[in-house]
């Protein structure tokens, strides 16, 4: 941190972040603010950990003392004993994984068509497609349900995966991303002898990778956390995904809050790992999308 102000601009006010005692105060205030903000995020999480280690009877006590009288780590094992938790895990992964893969494929192809190919009415169709984002999901719930029923996908993996394989939001995200890739690259490739398929797979897709990773993260998290659609679309036990499975502790065995907490903590692990592994792409991807002029 330097205190030297450039001699060529003596009149200009100093940037408060550049140095001096005023700047130090500002930094301290910022730091305290961030710590407080951090605490508000951590406290509920810490509370969840404590509840997951308590007995049902101790939960109320916990709100008063802040710590359970006795720890009960068996809650975690119980989750697996009482319900087919492993199966729920598999289902969630299976459904979210396929949905993500298919969504990346469909969205990137649609985005290519909406950004790199000139065809009559293209932008109007795109606007129409975007407009579907304005319709609240609940409104579509019943018609979608009927469609799935008629297609014979009720209570089946396909019913969980296929509707999630398309996304107007994902198409929008990737289209914006692809618009930042200079058109001279497609032109160079087409002169080099490439058709649309090659331009898409060998030029545009590799360059859109940060955007695709962002979309994949969003799509995976969204589908991994999806609750309502799997709830109304499945009835068999072996098709339940994690969020639906967690309900078991609320109905069949009474309200077993510690086990719900333990189960949801375990359910949280994969997305957290995913985030930690890919956060640099996430930040870069969001920035890249934003910087585009």
């Amino acid at each position: 941190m330097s205190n030297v102000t450039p001699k060529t601009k003596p009149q200009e006010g100093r940037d408060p972040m550049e140095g001096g005692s005023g700047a130090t105060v500002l930094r301290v205030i910022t730091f305290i603010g961030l710590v407080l903000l951090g605490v508000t995020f951590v406290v509920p999480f810490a509370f969840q950990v404590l509840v997951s280690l308590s007995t049902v009877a101790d939960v109320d006590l916990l709100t008063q003392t802040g710590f359970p009288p006795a720890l009960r780590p068996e809650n975690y094992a119980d989750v697996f004993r009482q319900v087919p938790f492993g199966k729920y895990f598999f289902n969630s992964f299976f459904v979210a994984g396929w949905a993500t893969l298919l969504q990346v494929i469909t969205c990137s192809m649609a985005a290519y068509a909406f950004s790199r190919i000139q065809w009559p009415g293209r932008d109007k169709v795109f606007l129409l497609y975007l407009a579907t984002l304005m319709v609240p999901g609940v409104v579509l719930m019943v018609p979608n349900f009927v469609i799935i029923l008629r297609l014979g996908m009720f209570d089946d993996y396909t019913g969980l995966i296929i509707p999630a394989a398309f996304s107007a939001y994902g198409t929008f995200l990737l289209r914006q991303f692809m618009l930042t890739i200079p058109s001279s690259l497609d032109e160079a490739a087409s002169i080099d002898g490439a058709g649309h398929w090659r331009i898409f797979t060998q030029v545009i897709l590799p360059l859109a990778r940060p955007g695709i990773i962002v979309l994949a993260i969003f799509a995976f998290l969204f589908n991994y956390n999806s609750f309502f659609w799997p709830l109304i679309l499945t009835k068999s036990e072996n098709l339940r995904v994690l969020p639906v499975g967690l309900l078991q502790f609320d109905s069949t065995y009474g309200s077993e809050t510690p086990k719900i907490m333990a189960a949801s903590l375990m359910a949280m692990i994969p997305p957290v790992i995913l985030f930690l592994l890919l956060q640099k792409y996430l930040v870069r991807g969001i920035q890249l999308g934003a910087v585009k002029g």
Partner: protein
Amino acid sequence: MARVVLKDVVKVYDRKVRAVEDFSLDIADGEFVVFVGPSGCGKSTTLRMIAGLEQITEGTIAIDERIVNDVHPKDRDIAMVFQNYALYPHMSVYKNMAFGLMLRKLPRQEIRERVQEAARMLGIEPLLERKPKQLSGGQRQRVALGRAIVREPKVFLFDEPLSNLDAKLRVTTRTEIKRLHQRLKTTTIYVTHDQEEAMTLGDRIVVMSAGRGVGRVEQVDTPLGVYRKPVNRFVGAFLGRTPMNFLEGKLVDDGGIHFQRDPGFHIRMLGEYEEQLRRHVGKEVVFGFRPSAMSEGPTGRNEGQSVTLNTVLVEPLGRNMDVSCRTDDDIHIVARIDSDARSEFPVGEKVTFYLDMDHTHVFEPGEFGNNLLHPPS
């Protein structure tokens, strides 16, 4: 290698913007043709139509005797170098150059040989494993050149390839392009807005303008042809490092055709032009002369014609110096004179300059006024 023929080519955008108007040109096999003009004159659009990157609204384009209006770019057997290089950022230099050959399913061994040969020619062999972002602007442009060369196409298309380079690199790369053309003898079409680039590179130059609401061809000729015999005022003004000087006045006949402008200009035209100028006696004209046509003593075919001007500023350029002058009624004129003759030049004085009449022109009024001495054929 191939002949390229454009016949009455028209490009209209959105049914109203006429970007290119009636462009006809016959480019011989192995010729180096430069399209030059200010921005918006349709030079790039024409190039892109030849490449197949733009639809042709009217007319035909033929490459090697085959009309290519509806032929996909990849089937036209052309290679193009873009202003922004258009290198694939995720591929190594080698892959960038080999990409087109791989798509054409050439044997791996041949691809390797061709890429290495081109890399050797351009001096980029040590860079083959690098990614484009690890290269400087000049190196990137060489790779782009290499990518075009390895394809051994019938026609090279260059779209302002040197615009993103700094002045020094521009000159060396320019020389390199010229050398490559001499070596490969491939038909080349080159687009630039830089008249100096056009003059140095082209076997022929196509001067285009945008001034009349449409992009159109003003003149097609050799570099010296367009420089010495511009068909109209626009071409005269556009070419030449220092702009041509223009004076508005009248043609009068008093014992020979003279350009007359008051106060102080009474310049006799060369005898050989008298016949064609006689029709314009009494009409408004624009007298044009290049800064280099002015000198302190009689030179060239001068026949005693001179102008007396007030000098205001001197810019030494090494071998020459540019002397900014004003007429008595405050019109700006630049004279480029030999600095070997003297080391200083009087400023703020009246100086008489002699005109080399072979480098003077008489235009009809207006920005696109025809050259009355060298009318368009």
